[in-house]
């Protein structure tokens, strides 16, 4: 009995769900725009679809975790997002939880309880 690719894919999706939000908050401590962020995340190995990321940015902005600003200086106007103070604080909490979970899972993997 082994898992198939579809099962792996759907489980990975579950695992990644929370990590994308955290990754956004961390990356956007340096302001960035939609496509730039998408490329950046891909580059560092965080898999996310454009149609998930773009709505998420707006949602996080609405929640006050990101701030945004239109930059009309460049060749084409772009909306730049940056992690707000509240976002940075939340990212810190989430990061701590994430590391804690990783340690727990490693312990379980080694067979300790």
């Amino acid at each position: 009995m082994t898992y198939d690719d579809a099962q792996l894919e759907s489980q990975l999706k579950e695992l990644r769900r929370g990590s994308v939000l955290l990754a956004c908050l961390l990356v956007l401590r340096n302001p960035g725009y939609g496509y730039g962020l998408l490329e950046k995340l891909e580059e560092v190995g965080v898999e996310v679809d454009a149609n998930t990321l773009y709505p998420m940015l707006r949602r996080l902005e609405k929640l006050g975790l990101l701030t945004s600003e239109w930059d009309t200086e460049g060749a084409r106007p772009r909306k730049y997002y940056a992690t707000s103070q509240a976002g940075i604080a939340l990212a810190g909490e989430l990061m701590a939880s994430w590391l804690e979970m990783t340690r727990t899972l490693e312990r379980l993997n080694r067979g300790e309880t």
Partner: protein
Amino acid sequence: MRELTERYVAAALRSIPEDQKSDIEAELRVSIDDAIEARVAGGGDARSAETEVLTELGDPDRLAAGYVGRPSYLIGPEHFFDYKRLLTVLLITVVPIVVTIVAVVQVVAGDSIASVLAQAFGSGLSLAVQIAFWTTLVFALIERGSERKTSEWTLSTLPLMPTAGTVRLGDTIGSVVFLVVAIAGLALSRTVSPVTGPDGSAISIFDPSVWDFWFPFFIVVLLIEIIFEVVKYWRGRWTWPLASLNVALNAVFAIPAVYLLTSGQIFNPVFFEEIGWGSEPAGDGTLVRVVVAAMIVIALWDIFDGFRKARKV
């Protein structure tokens, strides 16, 4: 001008509120342009780059729903169980009651059985569809309207173990169906009979005078019992007040019924003469004694059973 992109953006913006449109449009457009440009820079041709980028973005309606945080389902997990419970209760209660009322009215109006059945079935079906539609609509609106959470689930609403005096849906349906049949039977007995008089009209097994007051009264009591069954199901279990009410309902039905039976007011002597039993059974014969005994036993058992189940809870 990229034609596909134009069409895609227009489709995505369709369902976005006016005040957010320009902002989302500008952002979406530049994101698409950036993505296409990156592909072209990586050595693709512009046309297929556009196709790929838009395909990856997927259904524009879904994207738009994501942008405005609109649910992409009719009734979500937050409300689904409330929806299902309410719909079930409405369907198993309102529909039988209304069907019964329609049938009774038709029978009293003297329609044929075929017409009564057709009308009752038709009204039952259309009512069920109406209930399902409106309930679904209301919940779909609630889903889109309030941010408020639904009633918090607490342990106190936990159903009891199925053996301990809980009211099961199957029992409720069974009781309601029985009551509906009883009501229909009483109503139909007026115009339907195996025995007909010389002029071809039906001779009812029940004395025609029962319709002056008592049979309409009994039908009302039976309708109340249907409501009682529903309330009991809604409550989920027998309680002391329900068991007490059950006593009252049984008494209100059985006491007049026994009195009428023993005083010879229920059965129609003409009916029994026609089938050759003589007029005796209609008065104080074996039939009456059997019926009276059965009614008393059933009523007492039902009362006892209610308290037994209430105590178990």
